[in-house]
């Protein structure tokens, strides 16, 4: 089962549509609530990052009988130091983004703790692709 969603740069109000949509499907599949919550949190954080720190992008979701795989690929600018970005509290969020309640530097650490597999590929000036897997 495959889903795709577009991510628009800077559109914070629309972000969350993908995770909302996926949540409904997972409820239809009767996936256990704890896994659903982890999936929704991880996907939402990755989506917001592509909105806040990149120039938008695309989400690909695959649901199988035992797991979900979510690929969030954005269009630049890439992450210069992934280890640093993964640190709790590290954030380069702009003042505007902070005023909207984001920028605590907790997104990537949250993604890490809510997924079973996490892979981040990034290329400066090209973009970042985050692949997240959660087993039901």
């Amino acid at each position, binding site marked *: *089962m495959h889903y795709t969603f577009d991510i628009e740069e800077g559109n914070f109000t629309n972000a969350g549509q993908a995770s909302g949509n996926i*949540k409904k499907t997972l409820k*239809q*599949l*009767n996936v256990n*609530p704890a896994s659903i919550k982890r999936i*929704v*949190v991880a996907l939402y954080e990755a989506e917001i990052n592509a909105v806040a720190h990149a120039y938008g992008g695309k989400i690909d979701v695959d649901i199988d009988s035992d797991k979900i795989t979510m690929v969030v690929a954005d269009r630049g600018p890439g992450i210069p130091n992934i280890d640093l970005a993964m640190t709790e509290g590290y954030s380069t969020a702009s003042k505007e983004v902070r005023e909207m309640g984001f920028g605590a530097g907790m997104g990537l650490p949250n993604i890490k703790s809510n997924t079973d597999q996490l892979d981040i590929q990034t290329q400066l000036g090209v973009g970042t692709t985050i692949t997240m897997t959660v087993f039901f």
Partner: protein
Amino acid sequence: MDDTNNFFYHALTVDHDICTGCTHCMKACPTEAIRIRNGKSVIDKNKCIDCGECFKACSYHAIYIKQDDFDLMDQYKYKVALVPATFIGQFAGDVSTSQIYACLKQIGFSHIYEIEHGVSFLINLYKKYMAEHKDINTFISPYCPAVVRLIQTRFPSLVKNIIHMKVPLDITSLMIREYLSKEGICSEDVGVFYVSPCAAKIAAVKSPVGEDSSAIAGVINMDFLYNKVQHLLSKKTQGESEPIANHSLSGKDILWELTGGESVNFDNSSFAIDGMKNVIEFLEKIEDGDIEVNGLVEMRVCDQSCVGGILCPNNRFLAKQKLEIRAQEIKQHIENNDYQEEELFSEEEFDKKIAPMMNIPTITPRSSFKLHDNLQIALKMVENIKNIESKLPGIDCSACGAPTCSALAEDIIKEEATIDNCLFSHLPPEKYDELLKKIWGKNIKPL
């Protein structure tokens, strides 16, 4: 245990003689419980939460709320009217509470109690419950039965967040029964009649969550009783207005049914949410872990809470104002010490006799989303739904008898409808393009 086949009791009923199948109710239903079949609106008992949105949306008054036969009262020697404070709020500002009570006596009630009597006891019980459940942060009030059913069917993962305790109605009816038996009245002779502002409460009384029976002998719709009282008031035939006895209500207690009237008793981090859309939005956020409340979330599906109940004849803002003025007056009386207080129960008596009966052992989650218990099969079904949906125009016109195109797709794979239900599937492709693009523009999907 899978008990998805045990239906909830429902108070909302469609009169098929009046229903025109217009789709208004179907589009208003927040749980997509309604379909149009053979020109009539049909409610899915497993999805309906008795919130009354359909009742409000129906322009033909084809949806009605069943109530018990009023003559049921005659079977009891002592007829107790259990009225919510909201009832008093239905009458014009210059009609006093004692006038309303006098009319109720004339109608045949031997005792009249307001439901909010039990509130002060209940607050303590809820606080104790919250302190005992350290594994939960966000507690959802069990007060509005439509909210409880909404959570059971749409947010099953949040069932554990509901405070598993009874509500003022249950507590007060138990207290009254105990109190009257203390006065030497045999409990078989007592019939407690509940005056309801909404369908959800009727349904809750008829099939209480997590239990088999309720201590209520019958339910009277608020608008029905309002008319009877109003009739007596207009004829000015009500007896001498008598002072209100049996009062242990504080001003704060009678505001319980208004938005914020419950949460105000808990600490600052508590919330009060009213209105169906707001409730759903907030539940989504709690479910996603977006919001964590270290306290109580009061939730009522009606705008302005129970004064906005579908059986309340008065404008909800006027009713709210009347209750607020009355609360002020009571507060003043208490301060001036010219208020007759008669406690139904002392705290010790309550703890001994009533408190042990206040827990609700289980509230069963009954997801209305779940397509199948087997994930493989459910996955196949989701895939089929998605396929069918991609072939539908996506304009949610409802002419097919389903509220949205995706609801029709789901109905089709459950074999409750066919693609033929979609009128557009009958148009030749050239016509489809020509006709629909004129109206919906380029965004229309090709069939």
